[in-house]
């Protein structure tokens, strides 16, 4: 093997090693956030988001290690699947958490949804028909 190729190899190896370690650190960040944040909604930030970057780095490291072009589409598909699913599940859990009052009011500096919810609940009580009370298909 000529020395130039091995230098390139070394660089690729180093870059992917850094990617792997940083990607693993993102998982650790998620766990630390899970343990240290005070309420469900802020825990959710820590739990779901660093994974996006973490998985990106890990998949990029795989792509670098394999050194063939045809793995990249497969890796991209795996990442896009995660991009599509993570916000949806985070939103569902967050919405359920907000509706079941799993948040601490004293940790919120402002809550612009609260007034809307109060108003909707008020009109739901006034209005006997359920359909009109729910503003515009929020409950699908």
């Amino acid at each position, binding site marked *: 093997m000529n020395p130039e190729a091995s230098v390139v190899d070394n660089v690729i190896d180093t870059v992917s090693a850094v990617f*792997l370690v940083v*990607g693993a650190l993102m*998982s650790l960040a998620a766990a630390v956030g899970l343990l240290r944040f005070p309420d469900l909604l802020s825990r*959710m930030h820590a739990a779901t988001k660093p994974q996006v970057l*973490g998985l990106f780095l890990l998949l990029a490291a795989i792509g670098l290690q394999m050194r063939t072009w045809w793995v990249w589409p497969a890796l991209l598909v*795996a990442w896009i699947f995660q991009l599509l699913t993570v916000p949806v599940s985070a939103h569902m859990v967050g*919405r359920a*958490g907000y509706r079941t009052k799993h948040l601490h009011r004293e940790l919120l500096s402002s809550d612009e949804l609260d007034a809307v919810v109060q108003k909707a609940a008020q009109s739901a009580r006034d209005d006997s028909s359920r359909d009109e009370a729910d503003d515009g298909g929020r409950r699908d």
Partner: protein
Amino acid sequence: MMQTVLAVTAVILSLAAAGAIIRISRGPSLLDRVLASDVLLAILGAALCIDMAVNRHLNNLMLLVALSIVGFIGSVTVARFVADRREQANES
């Protein structure tokens, strides 16, 4: 060099998994536990990725996609269930 990377990431991921498991056992509410088990699943996925990168194979790639979909369906189902049950409880 890959062996050191493997060792370092193994330690990091074990710590992360321990944190997630502590949150699963302590979590004050059901949603906290769901969230933490989601993170645990993501950590497993990360471990699969690292295995693939270090040993240079792609056998786990579809497992990874399946894992993320299982996590998605699981947490959405539980969230839906929690929301619905509380709403009915409020109405009755």
